[in-house]
């Protein structure tokens, strides 16, 4: 196991290096960060040369890449280079955004996982029941819906709920502009009130889409296990059905879903773009969309590398969890 982890970590290093090169090429292809500034009014050649030197775009591509890599591994991720921007350092900005995203994503992921597993197991145990058909239909519809529309509808629902709450004299509970920047304050009651107000809608939004995926996976793997010979043996021994389902079937059906959850979570850290955009959370997704729109190469690069790192890391976690849950798997 230990050797396997070491080997996998070593394999992923060249992978990340190659990925960083591709990302660098992509951000270069995105366009000139000074393009907008050059168009604003005529600039003298001296001004342009100075600005290019400041942004680093006056050097050849490979040299720029080399410089960036060397600085990156030393913890200097560059800063915003578009003239007129605040010149924010990339690394702290990315880390802060990641904290915001993590706060939102972790809770939502756990709720979606628990709900999805429960619905999946019930759907498999009562296959072709009304419950199963409803859950299948619901999951199918969720898969076919663009997430951002769901998010927008949820948001407008929240605003209407606020209007109604205000009318009955309870004040506006739902916050659709992200968590308060200064953090939560006041008595415990107020804090809970603010906290739920900020989290409830984006969490629902994330849960809705993840839930569909997990419930389908859990149902499929549970069905496979329930049809296995050893489950029939257990039933033939005369064990109660509840014990068969939970002790014999459910524990084995957990293996595939654990892998899916790990992979999915790795992707989600960099991928809650839509939810963050709609609900105004300044997490990684929001930062990324802004950085791409403004052509901030180093900001985009930092975010891309962070997201790639999480995908690689959680791939590894998925493999380890798999081997841990299923002793038949030999990793090395």
């Amino acid at each position, binding site marked *: 196991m230990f050797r396997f982890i070491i080997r996998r970590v070593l394999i992923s290093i060249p992978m990340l290096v190659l990925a960083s090169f591709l990302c660098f090429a992509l951000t270069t292809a995105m366009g000139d960060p000074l393009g907008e500034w050059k168009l604003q009014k005529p600039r003298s050649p001296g001004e342009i040369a100075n600005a290019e030197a400041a942004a680093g775009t006056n050097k050849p591509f490979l040299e720029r890449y080399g410089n960036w890599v060397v600085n990156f591994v030393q913890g200097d991720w560059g800063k915003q280079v578009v003239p007129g921007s605040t010149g924010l350092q990339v690394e702290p900005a990315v880390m802060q955004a990641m904290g915001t995203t993590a706060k939102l994503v972790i809770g939502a992921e756990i709720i979606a996982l628990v709900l999805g597993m429960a619905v999946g197991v019930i759907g498999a145990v009562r296959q072709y029941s009304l419950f199963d058909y409803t859950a299948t239909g619901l999951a199918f519809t969720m898969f076919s*819906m663009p997430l951002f529309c769901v998010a927008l509808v949820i948001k407008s629902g929240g605003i*209407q709920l606020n209007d109604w709450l205000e009318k009955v004299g309870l004040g506006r509970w739902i916050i659709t502009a992200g968590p308060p920047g200064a953090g939560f304050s006041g008595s415990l009651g107020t804090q809970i009130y603010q906290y739920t107000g900020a989290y409830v809608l984006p969490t629902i939004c994330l849960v809705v889409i993840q839930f569909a995926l997990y419930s389908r996976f859990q149902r499929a793997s549970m069905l496979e296990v329930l049809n296995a010979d050893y489950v029939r043996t257990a039933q033939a021994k005369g064990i109660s059905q509840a014990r068969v389902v939970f002790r014999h079937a459910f524990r084995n059906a957990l293996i595939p879903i654990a892998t899916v959850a790990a992979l999915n979570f790795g992707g989600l850290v960099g991928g809650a773009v839509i939810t963050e955009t709609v609900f105004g959370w300044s997490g990684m997704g929001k930062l990324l969309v802004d950085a*791409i729109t403004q052509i901030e190469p180093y900001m985009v690069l930092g975010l891309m590398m962070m997201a*790639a790192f999480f995908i690689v890391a959680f791939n590894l976690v998925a493999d380890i969890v798999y081997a841990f849950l299923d002793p038949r798997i030999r990793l090395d």
Partner: protein
Amino acid sequence: MTDATIATTGATPAPNSGTSQFDSDSARSQWKVVLKRFMRHRAAVAGSALFILLVLFAFFGSYVWKYSYQQLNLGRYLPPSADHPFGTGHLGEDMLSQIIRGTQFSLQIAIIVAVVATFIGVILGAVSGYRRGWVDSLINRGIDLVLVLPPFVIAAAMTRSTFLLEATKTGSQSSNWLLVAIFISLISWMSIARTVRAMVLSLREKEFVEAARALGGSTPRIVFRHILPNTIDVIIVNTTVTIAQAVLLEAALSFIGLGVQSPDTSLGLLINQNKNELTQHPWLFFIPFAFIVAISLSVNFIGDGMRDAFDPRQRRVKA
């Protein structure tokens, strides 16, 4: 689809290529059986009908409907009526004609993605599974690499690229939607490549492939005539899934402003343009939304029906 001869002749019926009468007969019945099973799947049939209607609507609707998408000032924010079944927008444009055009672009993008991604995936998967060795490792590392890059991020960064935008210009007109389609294809081919590779790896050891090799068949002939037709079921199912995903991904990209740009259009862009009308003029938001769901749902149902039809082992049997 375990019987190779049947499947091979079934995919490419060639009367004088040395197959016996018996083979071509059973070949026809193989596809008949699949079709019959497909027709028994009610949701899939409904999905197919809906999808055909959507295609007709998108590509021929503009010839039938009286308003053009370019006509403005027909009256702003008119609710749906007999004259404007989907109402009008904030420039006084007829929404039905806008939806026709948006659906057309969305479908074009989805179909291009399905074709390009399937093509790349099948070729790379077949080569890597059949050749094995270092070619296989190389292609596999490539797949891993693309999977490491967060797809949404890549597509978003690529669609910004002015350099690539210049490159895809046809004449003086920029075709931004084509660019979006190509990008989505470039991040959608990996799952099909992996599936085809796994199937080719096992098929290449089968007796009929050995027989074809013993008869002196060239590698391309063995791969394209003998092996790939046996993976057609997986390929078709995967393609339908890709279409559904492409529609949603395109819509999401256009929504955050990094996908299709005007003067081109798409259903996602229409929603983006009308996202603030949700409460006051809900039809402007919900109609394009409904069309996206209709496309994606119908294609998903078709894929589900195909899977059941091709693989009778997964048939829904009451236990």
